[in-house]
């Protein structure tokens, strides 16, 4: 058992998948790491900041991504998905489909000539922290003029590359597909989609990012003016039997982090967090919240909004009950950030006929090996622990 080197398919290249892959490789096992996006890192790599350290989220991940690419035991398949997965003689046969990128990352030198040449403005740099930095072409809005391909000095741009289908025989599969935001549009009371200043927390994270388009400035999305007030709404779509019954586990800390960051950048912005239970169970998490309980500037109000709607004269109304006082309040905010609508990615993007068994809430059951948010809502630390544990279970061939 101990000397048998395995081949493991890891589905998902975020924190969980990367950590599992590195642990397997360190033990001498072979890994196929399948990531649907352009690059490794998943959701965390796109975060501006990381709690509870308030450090850049990407930096610690950058090393791990680099190690994945460097390690000869790990084959990274980006822009890829598992199409089929069949049991075969105690193993699995997987068919992985690698989409062909229009801009080949191994050739793109990030010079930006395609962006200058594109008449429709659809050639854009990838998000700020992606490694290596490359350009992407939005094929849906592309006019097919190929001006970009003509100016590309390295022939990185080609429109006729074909997708690759790769058959893999693997001993074990680790599900680490992470989470996605689920649309809040059906829940009309949150007003998502009705006004540019009502954002989900991940939208706000990208909007306020220091490396993002506003270079860390806190601005309204509607008119790029500095907001006077921001409401952070917790459990939006979560702990709610109509959409997601689970608690997404990461949102309380995420909102605290964002609100504290807003105060640090622009102290005059009034930040209010409307929460149900302030769940701060990890190391240093409660003390992180205590900064605000002790008057750091962010106001924590226990209450769940009943209605959020744009006001005709500008601003957004939030109607809620302030539970400690029992009063129904209507307050005007300049921005509203909705937090909580995170779901295991597997029910949103299932592997037809090949996915693992899921619970009613869409999480992978103990019948398969999984880690990260697809197993149970988890933050970076929890995901990393689960990933190592999943690596062990794959090495030993035990489930659960």
């Amino acid at each position, binding site marked *: 058992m101990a000397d048998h080197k395995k081949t493991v398919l890891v589905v998902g290249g975020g924190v969980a998948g990367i950590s599992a892959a590195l*642990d397997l490789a360190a033990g001498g096992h072979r890994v196929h790491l399948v990531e649907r996006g352009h690059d490794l890192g998943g959701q965390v790599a796109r975060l501006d900041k990381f709690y509870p350290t308030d450090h850049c989220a990407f930096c610690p*991940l950058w090393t791990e991504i680099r190690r994945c690419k460097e390690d000869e035991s790990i084959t990274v398949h980006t822009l890829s998905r598992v199409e089929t997965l069949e049991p075969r003689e105690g193993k699995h046969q997987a068919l992985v489909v690698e989409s062909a990128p229009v801009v080949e990352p191994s050739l793109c030198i*990030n010079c930006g000539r395609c962006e200058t040449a594109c008449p429709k403005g659809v050639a854009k740099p990838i998000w700020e922290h992606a490694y290596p930095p490359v350009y992407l072409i939005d094929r849906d809005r592309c006019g097919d003029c190929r001006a970009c391909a003509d100016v590309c000095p390295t022939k990185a741009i080609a429109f006729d590359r074909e997708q690759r289908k790769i058959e893999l025989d693997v001993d074990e599969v680790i599900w680490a597909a992470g989470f996605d935001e689920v649309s809040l549009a059906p829940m009309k009371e949150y007003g998502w989609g009705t006004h540019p200043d009502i954002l989900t927390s991940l939208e706000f994270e990208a909007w306020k990012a220091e490396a993002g388009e506003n270079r860390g400035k806190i601005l309204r999305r509607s008119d790029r003016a500095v907001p006077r007030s921001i409401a952070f709404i917790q459990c939006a779509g979560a702990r709610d039997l109509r959409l997601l019954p689970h608690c997404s586990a990461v949102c309380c800390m995420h909102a605290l982090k964002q609100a504290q960051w807003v105060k640090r950048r622009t102290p005059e912005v009034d930040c209010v967090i409307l929460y149900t239970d302030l769940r701060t169970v990890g190391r240093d998490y*409660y003390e992180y919240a205590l900064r605000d309980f002790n008057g750091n500037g962010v106001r924590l109000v226990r209450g769940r909004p009943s209605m959020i709607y744009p006001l005709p004269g500008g601003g957004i109304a939030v109607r809620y009950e302030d539970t400690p006082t029992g009063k129904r309040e209507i307050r005007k905010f300049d921005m509203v950030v909705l937090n909580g609508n995170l779901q295991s990615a597997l029910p949103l993007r299932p592997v037809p006929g090949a996915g693992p068994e899921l619970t009613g809430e869409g999480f992978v059951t103990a019948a398969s090996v999984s880690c990260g948010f697809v197993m149970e809502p988890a933050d970076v630390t929890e995901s*990393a*622990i689960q990933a190592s544990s999943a690596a*062990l279970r794959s090495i030993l061939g035990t489930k659960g």
Partner: protein
Amino acid sequence: MTKIGVFLCNCFGEIGQVIDLESIRKRLESDPAVDFVTVRESLCLPGDAAEAHARIRERGIARVLLGACSPYGRMEIVRLGLAKEGVDVRTVRAVDLREGCAWVHGKDPRGANRKAANQIDMELAFLRNTQDSKDVAIAVRREALVIGAGPSGLSAACGLARMGFPVHLIDRGTAPGGTLNRVTKSYPTEEPGPQKIAALVDETGRNPLIRFYGKTNVASVKGYAGDFKVSLAGPEGNTSLRVGAVVLATGARLLFPQGLYGYGKLKGVITQMEMERQFATGKPACRSAVFIQCAGARNAERPYCSTICCPLSLKNAMRIVDEVPGAKAAILHRDIMTPGSVLEAYYRRALHKGVRFIRFDAERPPEVRGDGQVSAVEVFDAISGKTRTIETDLLVLSTPLVADPESAALARMLEIPVDRHGFIAEVYPVHPVETRNDGVFICGTARWPVSSDQAMAQGEAAAVKAASFLGRQTVSALTMSRVPGTKLGHATANAEACTGCGNCVAVCPYHACRLQRTGQRSVSRVIKVRCKACGSCASVCPNGAMQIPEQNYRVTGEMIRRAFREVR
């Protein structure tokens, strides 16, 4: 003399349009240390690394200077390419001519060229003056010590043994199992505690690779990753071991609530563990049970959430409702901490079963009434704004897990830091079971309050991390870096210049510097395996005795001298 090869990248004009690569080439070619200067269109595209490597080999070059882009651009791809060709990337230095010069200073070509020249000169100064650290290889002892045989320690030990590594598993108790042995139902599966770990306990007895030492403590630890010399104090005297890795899984204790909410004064005021005992020996005889959360937690003294107390109360409140006929249960809380899907469903279940939840504010804690025996709890309901009196004959205090002083003592022995609450600190949140001392891993509640399930997952995680280290036959000090092949070097102490002041010992975050007595005086000695080449020691040494040969003071001085020089 060191021969230096220089590759300059034009990046299809991205660099060459601003930076005059030809004049840089001419200038460098007159430098006697430079063997060749090659200007290339690219360095990062397929095939480039092989061509560069061929040139390096053909000229017998020891050190390489790359003038290309930023490490956050494609420089890492260049280095990776060279590494895959077999070039030792520690001999390669890089200058960012694209993002750092041509792009940001594109409107000031003179300035951009001067900055490029300065940076190239600085790196050449580095390559001319740098020296190599002498590497040290140590043989890895292919066995592990696991301290603590609770859920986390058991799963670490069994994980390691199943992967084929011999494990010494010690516990201060007589048998493995830890606190879980005393829990009749564990949350959320409601499996009896001992059953949850039965397979692991069984394996501990059955697997020949695991040796269990009951009633045993660690007397001392010496050494470093790969070769720790451990002395164990057990019932049969001391045992000496040499192990490659140590897993610390000593657990935590529940706070004893003396003086809190009438505990110790009123009958019927008990702790969660006392409630477990009542369930173990029958059923609590009560008409009503009230649970108070955060008893001694999330206050000024212990400003943290202990994670497990909310689910524990949910479990025991549901047991009261289910198993004690006619009895009611109420949980007085500040926030119900049930993150995730499983625990949130557990919370919903308790709500459906009729467990009453009343939220109170920290500033207005519940008050306990009674005379000799608890009779009622008065609580200000923060939601309704009313004061409620709940008659009860049983009050259960949900107290937090607190760090075990023995763990802190072990942490000192193993030279790893504890946090301000006494729990053992990980190296970084992304590496949650690794510590600042390579080869020492942590799991379970010694690290931070967690459920038994989480503790077991951490045990497995620690096993995997320890195994990847133990699986290597030897490790060389220069590979002891998170990113293989990138450790700069390690500090060396010049015994003649050292006056034994101990500054380096005080400042080293990795406990790599030691004072060693030689004859009449003490001199510093560096444990190379532990050194991470951070340079702290060199910066505080008043005598220049502590140096990292790669980045010695001559290197640094020569680089600074060239940093802002006018270049013709």
